[in-house]
């Protein structure tokens, strides 16, 4: 259930910004396109009162440490609780454009040069997260904005985890959080200690597959959650898709490797994938 705040109420609560339009809300955040007093376009996210504060902290910590063109930039974090006037919001750069979901329509296949350019940039952003030991854990089309120039920006770090600060997460083993369609096998199994940056590589492998083939590697309309989990953990049917088999071998190798069930079989890091995609750009 998305967390919705009427735009009028939001404007009343945050009068220092001019509210332009509501953006797609998340389960725990209502998002708006706003302008600050200098007229700069920004994205303001009002955080739900029942939001897990540790998760907010994680998100802020993650965002504060990154400066990369393919990762959303944090502008400000506000948390105040004066009597009768509670404010809890994140202000990020406003990314004009669309979300990736609009470019990943069923049956629509990207050209390989387009895929190479877009995903090279995406993996560059992921490599920046990797360098800081941050795992996003919820990469999906709605968490990747596409700028008007076509370049991707990773947003929404609400589920991000700093690998060297495991105490920051209170997610118990077995509790699956994130978006199942882009879960990795280790997320389906709910084994917290198996989640690392290669979890994000699996999700990005689903996205790359979707872009190249025009369909999700595991999802189908009538699938149940348990069938989806089974497919993610066990099925290699996606490798037999005719459109996959007509891809040049190098593209099959890198896409297939991102979708390996076992973390050890996936690429070692995002920078490696970025370099390979650059290498095979002309193929």
């Amino acid at each position: 259930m998305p967390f919705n705040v009427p735009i009028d109420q939001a404007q009343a609560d945050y009068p220092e910004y001019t509210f332009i339009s509501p953006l797609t809300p998340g389960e725990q955040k209502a998002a708006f396109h706003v302008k600050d007093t200098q007229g700069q376009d920004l994205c303001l996210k009002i955080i739900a009162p029942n939001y897990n504060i540790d998760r907010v902290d994680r998100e802020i910590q993650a965002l504060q440490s990154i400066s990369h063109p393919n990762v959303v930039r944090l502008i400000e974090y506000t948390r105040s609780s004066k009597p009768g006037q509670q404010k809890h919001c994140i202000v990020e750069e406003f990314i004009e454009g669309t979300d990736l979901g609009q470019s990943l329509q069923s049956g629509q296949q990207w050209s390989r040069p387009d895929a190479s350019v877009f995903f090279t940039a995406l993996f560059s952003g992921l490599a920046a997260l990797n360098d800081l030991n941050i795992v996003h854990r919820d990469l999906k089309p709605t968490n990747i904005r596409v700028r008007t120039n076509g370049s991707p920006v990773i947003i929404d770090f609400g589920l991000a985890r700093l690998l060297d600060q495991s105490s920051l997460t209170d997610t118990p083993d077995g509790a699956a959080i994130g978006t199942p369609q882009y879960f990795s096998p280790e997320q389906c199994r709910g084994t917290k200690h198996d989640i690392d940056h290669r979890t994000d590589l699996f999700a990005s492998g689903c996205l790359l597959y979707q872009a190249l083939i025009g369909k999700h590697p595991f999802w189908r309309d009538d699938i149940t959650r348990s069938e989806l989990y089974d497919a993610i953990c066990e099925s290699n049917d996606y490798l037999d898709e005719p459109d996959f088999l007509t891809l040049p071998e190098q593209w099959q190798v890198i896409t297939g490797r991102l979708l390996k069930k076992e973390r050890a079989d996936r690429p070692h890091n995002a920078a490696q994938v970025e370099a390979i995609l650059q290498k095979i750009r002309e193929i």
Partner: protein
Amino acid sequence: MRRGPWHQFGDRSQNFVIEQLQQGAGVGVIISPRDIGMDHAIAYSQRYHGLDAHVLFDPQFYVPGFSNTKMETYPTNLTRTTISQTHQIMDPLLVVLVNALHAVNSSLSADGLIAPALIYEAGRPDIMQLNRRLFSAAKQVGDALGIPTYATVIIGNSAVASDQTIKEILSHATSLNCDGFYYGFEFSSERIPSSREIVLRCCTGGLTLACTGLPVLHAFAGPMALLSLGFGAKGSAIGHFKNLWQFTRSRWGPTPDQGGGGNAPPRFFSSSLWGTIICPDEIIQLPPTLQNQILTHSPFSSQVSSSRSFSGWPVWDAGKHMVHTICSVVSVIAANSDPRTNANSALTILQGAVTLHQNIATAGLSLRDNTNAYQRNWQLAMNDLLTNHSRDFDYLALLS
């Protein structure tokens, strides 16, 4: 990590290794605290560096409860023995370990740091946790010394029986923030591993590590060094004793007797057999054409020739000859950086060995020592690797 053959230190290796390096065999040395005290190790590491070899120190936490007088000379020994019962390490002891690793590796001017780690066993997440902590200590030291830190991945006997268990261990190991891997595999007690299935698992595990793009040093490879470069390893460690020809846990346990092999005749390691033949007993039973094919010489085998009686060749020289021969072949293979090509080079050598063994059998000689038991199975295992893991080789090619 230097590419090519490395010397795996064992009992009385110090001068043995110098002779090998003087003959141009080997690119580096892996010091074993079980076999040389720290003072001597420091002195010899200078000599090895003087011979243009790289030096690594294997802290040997494999059987942490074991100790001997040589190991006790190293500051790392305290941590080893302390964790033997609990398989845990408390923070204060981790600090002790950091200091100890720093002291040893800086004293030896090590060119890389091999992280301490226990043998990985099936169903033992506690060992993974412990190894992660041990690695983090090592990484601190490696970074402080400005040298690469290699994660030690020794797959124990309990784990080698299942592909899935090995994968889980490798998923853990590859999550470490390391600069390469020191990889070993525990086989059964055979003199040289011969099971097609298990050899394939060892090679597959190595290939998985190599696909990270980080360098892999195949530890305790022995004659299996022929296969190392074919599964993507960058280095392969070779020692002169049987218990260095595969990872042998018993090497870090109490020795029941003096050992030494008694008055056994020397075994001649032939690169064309990729195995040994008893010298002179078996060699002299063969026709000269086969003798000529078998006697592949090194600077340490001049005493052995088909025109002489072969008698009196010291067993010690047979060991030197074997290590030099393996190093020479591995060096030739290592000159090519493509693992698929290297796997095929190994296959060519193994095919020659299989044929030669068949010719020996046709000549009416049945070799002792089961020395012809593994070549065919290694060939099959390597073929399986190339066929079943073709995509991994493709991926390695993309990384290059």
